[in-house]
């Protein structure tokens, strides 16, 4: 397998950010080493939203232009986005246990991410459950658009829900401004993860194209059985 330049750059920048985060960024005074998970957690969340945003855009364009390439992009971005959302949902509790005292709280942002995760699990299950290629593209485009439309509503409803309950004592929304050395690490982690996303998206897109071409050869225009 040929390794692309993008792959080398993406992986190298993620490794560089991790090295910087582990060895050259100070340990936060109150949260201790657990705080360093931020350099994985926050950029993953950023990439997840970027990815789901692209799903919505590609879905909308697909219903308009009916170009299968747009469907491949939506499929690839949903899958990569789901991987990063999973990373967000896994790294969050790891940090939350020592800092908040609980792995999970029904805080607005947590609930929001979890619901979003389920939307795109549903999206991929739907794709897997439809055999006809054209129908799969149309159905998943509809779901991709609805998923984006749902975002503001989950956001508002979970925030309204949270305000009814007292906040856990340990968890406060105050974000003390970071010292510059940490900010640099955080910002570069965003850049590195974005590169990682672009690379993974491109690879996944190539896979979608290749798989579809194979289906086409095997089963004709109807797609896989």
């Amino acid at each position: 397998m040929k390794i692309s330049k993008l792959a080398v750059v993406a992986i190298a920048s993620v490794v560089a950010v991790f090295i910087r985060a582990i060895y050259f960024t100070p340990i936060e005074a109150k949260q201790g080493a657990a705080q360093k998970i931020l350099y994985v957690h926050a950029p993953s969340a950023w990439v997840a939203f970027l990815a789901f945003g692209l799903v919505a855009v590609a879905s909308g364009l697909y219903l308009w232009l009916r170009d299968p390439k747009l469907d491949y992009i939506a499929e690839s971005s949903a899958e990569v986005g789901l991987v990063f959302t999973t990373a967000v949902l896994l790294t969050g509790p790891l940090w939350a246990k020592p800092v908040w005292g609980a792995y999970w709280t029904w805080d607005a942002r947590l609930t929001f991410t979890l619901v979003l995760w389920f939307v795109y699990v549903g999206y991929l299950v739907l794709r897997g459950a439809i055999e006809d290629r054209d129908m799969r593209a149309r159905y998943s485009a509809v779901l991709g658009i609805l998923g984006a439309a749902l975002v503001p509503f989950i956001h508002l409803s979970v925030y309204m829900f949270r305000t009814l309950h007292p906040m856990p004592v340990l968890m406060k929304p105050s974000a003390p401004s970071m010292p510059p050395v940490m900010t640099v690490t955080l910002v570069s982690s965003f850049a590195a993860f974005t590169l990682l996303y672009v690379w993974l998206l491109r690879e996944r897109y190539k896979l979608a194209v290749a798989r579809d071409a194979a289906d086409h050869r095997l089963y004709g225009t109807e797609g896989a059985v």
Partner: protein
Amino acid sequence: MPNRPPGIGRAALMIARKDLLIELRSRSAIFSALAFSVLALAVFFFAWDPTAVGSGDLASGVIWVIFTFSGMLGLHRSFGGEQPTRTIDALIAAPVAGEAVFLGKGLANLVFVAMVQIVTLPAAALLYNVPLVPVALPLAGVVLAAAIGLVAIGTLFSAMAVNTRLAELLLPLLSLPFFVPIVICASQATAKLMAGRPVSDAADYLRLLVVFDAVAVVLSTLVYPSLIEQ
């Protein structure tokens, strides 16, 4: 009268009438949904320690869990019922707009869900000892607003799920995340009303529900035709 195809509104009403007539004659889905709802009220009562949480405080949550799931029982039948004899093909081939098929199906589903709610709410009030009469009007508003959102989303996903390999198994997986905002708003508003708080306390939730309904109905009606094109 010349043979002119009906407009969207009339076609939707005809399709809704057809679905409701089938349901009225068989009465299978409505009875199972009603039995499920009342049975669930009884089962849920024992899921909490009654000495720790008053039954009145449970009622709103229980009601909305039941509405969410009993709604789904009926929603699958909406398009699933057309499947064995492929009558959906006739609807698609009929000289009516795709939007009309969706609106008609949705309207029939709304009547179905409303019928379940009309029976379940008083039953819940009775069994959980919640005063219903003083808050009947605002509560009816909350229930209707939530039902419209549930039905719009549920009808669209039912149309999708029925054509997939997983059929009715896919419906809850697709719809439940979309029901989250509805259930949060509706159950919080219901809890406030049942606790005797002023209607203004529930107003924010009701407003969000109405906006959700508007977006859900418009968006799903617009995208539905792209599901049925051949």
